[in-house]
């Protein structure tokens, strides 16, 4: 909402300065977004006429224009607008002028080799409208003003103040509403606006009917006819007013309706009465009806949108936009002025469906004062008569419902209860009266009648807000919090989340955070059989689906980093992946990815490609740091198909194989090829947080009894020849089961295939530590356990001890 202090003063009597105003506006919840000075630089913009145009020698789309700016010589200006034609009267900005939209200073510039002295401006560049197509087109009447400043020299130096009005305050979309709030807060006094007495003799002869049908959202339609007007340019005071808040003057009739709208937030619509066939019918649209709106676009309507129509068809969309067919022009003689009330929700609904955004829509969807219909009509009609002449008919009001006043029983004690400080009843009354409430004192409460312009107020808490807002938030005390905790801050799962996050980071991985949505093509590589979850309205097609795996994003960013020249890199993310589009259909995953080599270009260590055992180490180590005993892990090689089928594995926390705790391995070479990622090797892992069983014990209970043996231990090496498909895990499991009390450590120290070993077999060498808790084992004991081990391994795995 754009305002000036000068305009405010139409409604507000005050001696205070603009600086105080800005502060006070923000203090009462009408936030000042920006303040800009319009008057200081705008004298430079001049009315000008294009005398001649030539095609730019070096650019097809540009023209070189000779422009009459009221000086002896014509100015050469390069312009790209389609409508920069010979004879056009427009607005010229000389070098040195500051373009309001971009806030940049113009300079003499060479454009594709041709020097341009200044610029021809579009309405949007001058902040006069949002329309940016073409340069401003001024009417022939401006011919006499060529060379003169387009913006009149106004005496005031009022700055343009842009307020951010929250959606609950439609009343402050009018200058008067803002003045009322300011006055209530003690910033000046609200002036009582006098309604001009006008004599209305003639009947409103154009019949208006609101169809009483299901879903009719127009409850009141007020109108009056003004006959024999002479539409003209607005008088200077009106033009100045509109320009001062950044509006472009068009014609007296349009300017007056805009003025009334800005002044008291009462949107009006003016029809050329002669273009209306017989009468006005307010009805629901039929499916497929079309009309051309004032924005020159054709809209195809759905069923049950509120339209203002005549016998021929749709004239306009009620409360949103008028139509071209009945629009007013300079030669309009008779006008019908509309002032109506539409249901806010349906306005919003219709505008959304048609993707239409207008000033009227913005106001109606927030709620217009239903009792402002007549005031608005009279104010606009009398101004039209004053400026354009004509006779005003009596006001015709059609209604299918009536406004019911709202009352609230307000308990004065509730104020302190919510805000924590007190104000006197006298002060409460004063504020509420200033805001327009009518108060009746009852025994235990105040009975309040809510002003009709405040659709946002319906219950006690709304009154408390009004009172504290106007009293000032600075009066709220600061009550220091008590340092006391009765519940633990994090749940066990949350603690595990934080632990895993830092455990992985401590192993050389950089934590990343990537978006929860991703590129469908990347996602497909890692989606498996999970259903794709599409976003209906994505930012771009590359961000069109929710991720089914974190790998899609990680691999994309890994690739980017590799392209930046970083060759050896580990990154990870902990976050959600999605399994469905319902709330809760998501899992928390720790996903890591490593590329390149270990010890690249090291003077001391041998360099090697990163491999799956690096990833496995990081996962196993992290899980055991988190409290899971790695001796109990069960590992096999069944993994999703985005991993290398032979070089990947999955980890279960124990042999019950209940839920997969993690996957690790090389990424499938086909994916690397498709993504065209350039690295020696790429390995990754995924840990599934929800699949990790939470221990019921706390850390202190997890520690078992401390028991160590001081008896002598012995080490024994074994080498078994087994079939290639026998896994090391199986051998270890068999061995440890032979006598868990004596075998205290098992270590695989060599795996060998090749010479001296049959083709389909391999040799696994194992080092065992044997120690008893009870005694020093003698040769006989050791011999016995050796034999049991060999026997068990040979029987259960088909291995042969290597002699």
């Amino acid at each position, binding site marked *: 909402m754009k305002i000036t202090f000068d305009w405010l003063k139409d409604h507000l009597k005050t001696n205070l300065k603009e600086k105080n105003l800005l502060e006070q506006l923000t203090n009462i919840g009408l936030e000042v977004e920006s303040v800009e000075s319009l008057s200081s630089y705008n004298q430079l913009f001049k009315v000008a006429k294009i005398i001649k145009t030539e095609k730019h020698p070096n650019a097809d789309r540009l023209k070189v224009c000779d422009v009459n700016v009221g000086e002896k010589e014509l100015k050469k200006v390069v312009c790209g607008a389609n409508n920069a034609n010979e004879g056009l009267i427009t607005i010229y900005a000389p070098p040195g002028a500051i373009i309001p939209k971009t806030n940049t200073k113009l300079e003499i510039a060479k454009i594709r080799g041709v020097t341009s002295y200044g610029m021809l401006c579009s309405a949007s560049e001058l902040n006069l409208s949002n329309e940016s197509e073409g340069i401003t087109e001024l009417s022939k009447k401006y011919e006499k003003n060529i060379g003169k400043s387009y913006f009149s020299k106004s005496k005031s130096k009022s700055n343009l103040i842009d307020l951010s009005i929250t959606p*609950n305050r439609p009343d402050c979309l009018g200058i008067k509403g803002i003045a009322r709030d300011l006055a209530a807060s003690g910033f000046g006094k609200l002036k009582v606006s006098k309604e001009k007495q006008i004599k209305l003799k003639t009947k409103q002869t154009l019949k208006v009917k609101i169809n009483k049908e299901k879903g009719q959202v127009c409850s009141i339609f007020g109108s009056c006819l003004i006959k024999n007007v002479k539409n003209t340019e607005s008088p200077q005071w009106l033009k100045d007013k509109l320009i001062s808040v950044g509006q472009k003057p068009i014609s007296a009739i349009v300017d007056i309706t805009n003025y009334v709208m800005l002044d008291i937030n009462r949107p009006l619509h003016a029809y050329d009465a002669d273009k209306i066939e017989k009468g006005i019918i307010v009805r629901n649209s039929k499916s497929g009806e079309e009309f051309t709106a004032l924005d020159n676009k054709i809209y195809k309507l759905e069923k049950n949108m509120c339209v203002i129509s005549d016998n021929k068809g749709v004239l306009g969309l009620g409360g949103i936009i008028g139509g071209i067919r009945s629009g007013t022009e300079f030669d309009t003689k008779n006008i019908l002025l509309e002032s109506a009330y539409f249901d806010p929700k349906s306005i919003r609904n219709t505008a959304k469906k048609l993707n239409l955004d207008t000033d009227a829509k913005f106001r109606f969807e927030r709620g217009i004062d239903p009792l402002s219909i007549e005031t608005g009509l009279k104010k606009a009609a009398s101004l039209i008569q004053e400026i354009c002449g004509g006779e005003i008919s009596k006001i015709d009001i059609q209604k299918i419902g009536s406004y019911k006043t709202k009352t609230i029983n307000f308990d004065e004690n509730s104020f302190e209860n919510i805000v924590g400080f007190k104000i006197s009843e006298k002060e409460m009354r004063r504020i509420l009266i200033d805001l327009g409430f009518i108060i009746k004192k009852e025994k235990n409460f105040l009975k309040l009648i809510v002003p009709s312009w405040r659709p946002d107020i319906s219950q006690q808490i709304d009154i408390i807000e009004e009172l504290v807002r106007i009293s000032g*938030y600075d009066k709220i005390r600061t*009550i220091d919090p008590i340092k006391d905790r009765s519940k633990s801050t994090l749940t066990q799962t949350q603690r595990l989340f934080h632990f895993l996050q830092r455990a992985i980071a401590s192993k050389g991985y950089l*934590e990343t*955070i990537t978006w929860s949505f991703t590129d469908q093509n990347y996602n497909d590589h890692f989606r498996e059989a999970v259903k794709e979850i599409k976003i*209906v309205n*994505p*930012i771009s097609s590359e961000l069109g689906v*929710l991720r089914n795996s974190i790998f899609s994003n990680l691999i994309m960013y890994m690739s980017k980093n590799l392209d930046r020249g970083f060759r050896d890199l580990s990154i990870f993310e902990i976050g959600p992946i999605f399994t469905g589009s*319902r709330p809760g259909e998501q899992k928390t995953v720790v996903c890591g990815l490593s590329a390149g080599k270990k010890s690249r270009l090291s003077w001391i260590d041998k360099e090697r490609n990163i491999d799956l055992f690096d990833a496995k180490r990081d996962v196993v180590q992290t899980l055991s740091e988190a409290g899971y005993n790695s001796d109990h892990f069960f590992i096999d090689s069944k993994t999703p198909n985005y991993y290398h089928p032979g070089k990947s594995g999955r980890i279960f926390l124990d042999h019950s194989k209940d839920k997969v705790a993690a996957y690790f391995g090389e990424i499938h070479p086909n994916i690397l090829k498709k993504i065209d990622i350039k690295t020696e090797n790429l390995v990754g892992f995924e840990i599934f947080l929800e699949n990790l069983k939470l221990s019921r014990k706390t850390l202190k209970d997890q520690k078992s009894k401390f028991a160590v043996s001081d008896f002598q231990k012995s080490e024994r090496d074994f080498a078994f020849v087994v079939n290639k498909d026998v896994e090391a895990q199986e051998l270890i499991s068999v061995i440890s089961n032979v006598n868990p009390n004596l075998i205290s450590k098992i270590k695989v120290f060599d795996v060998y295939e090749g010479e001296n070993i049959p083709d389909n077999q391999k040799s696994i060498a194992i080092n065992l530590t044997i120690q008893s808790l009870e005694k020093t084992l003698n040769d006989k004991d050791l011999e016995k356990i050796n034999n049991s081990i060999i026997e068990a391994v040979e029987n259960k795995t088909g291995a042969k001890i290597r002699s």
Partner: protein
Amino acid sequence: MSDLKKIKDEFISKLKGKLDLAELNQIKSELFGKNGLVSSQFKKIATIDFSERKKFASDLNIIKNELQDLINFKINEIQKANINEKLAKEKIDVTLPERSFVRGKIHPVSQTIDAISSIFSEIGFSVEEGPDVENEYNNFTALNTPDNHPARDMHDTFYLDDKKERMLRTHTSPVQIRTMLKDKPPFKIIAPGRTYRSDSDQTHSPMFHQVEGLHIDKNINMGHLKGCLNYFIKEFFEIKKIKMRFRPSHFPFTEPSAEVDIRYEIKDGKIIIGEGDQWLEILGCGMVHPNVLKNVKVDPKKFQGYAFGIGIDRLAMLKYGINDLRAFFDCDYRWLNHFGFDPLDVPTNYRGLSR
């Protein structure tokens, strides 16, 4: 000359010569081995006349010690020489680089979430979570934002179905609803997490992070809200004093609502929080709207309290001097390395938020 003296003289003169370790060991065994010269003398003690035995034993021990000391001294000398010789050869250039150790880092957003949790933990808040995908009821309707309410314009929502019933949550406020539906009052929670709006430019990311706060109990008023936020901001920015302003605003789910600004200034290109002549908006808050309480079956006549929502990414930007929001999610190795935190640097109450 007695045997003993003979042995002694002979070997002392032998030991005066230049001997290597092997020769010394040879002498050692000649003297002290099982049948060595000195060892044999000891065996003789028993056969010697009682009157002379004492003196003999004493002399023998003196000689034995003398020879032993001498041999040990010689061996020591050689060993020392050997080590010195070895050391002289073993000198290495210690300025060569150490074995590499790759450090991981924690993302500044994660670090900030941990810091926030730590601060609120101290005053009794616990952490709640909610799903990223929400239904329309929890994200809007229950929060007093009915369909066709203009306030919905402030939330550019990503939808997952054509009926617009499922969406990516546009704020963390639905966690309020979930928490209050699940448990009974009082409530004292924060809910950090990912939030989504279809807005993407230099200062907006389609995904960002918020932390929601909710405190519902008997008699909780706006003074408590002010106190809580004042405490939080001071602790978070690790400053003693903060100039803060509560400004009336509007959110459908709180009333009265406020936006909170803090003072700042730019000094030498760096932002200084807490002092200065500029206001910086950092969060939105208010008293939970009675309609919201009714929606979650909490009696607004008995219980009341406040809620707030803070942009985590923005807090991180302010605290750590990060200019570009988009960089948070760009995963540039250099950026992560620069702004990331050592995983051992866990923000805690007792040790402080940062090193």
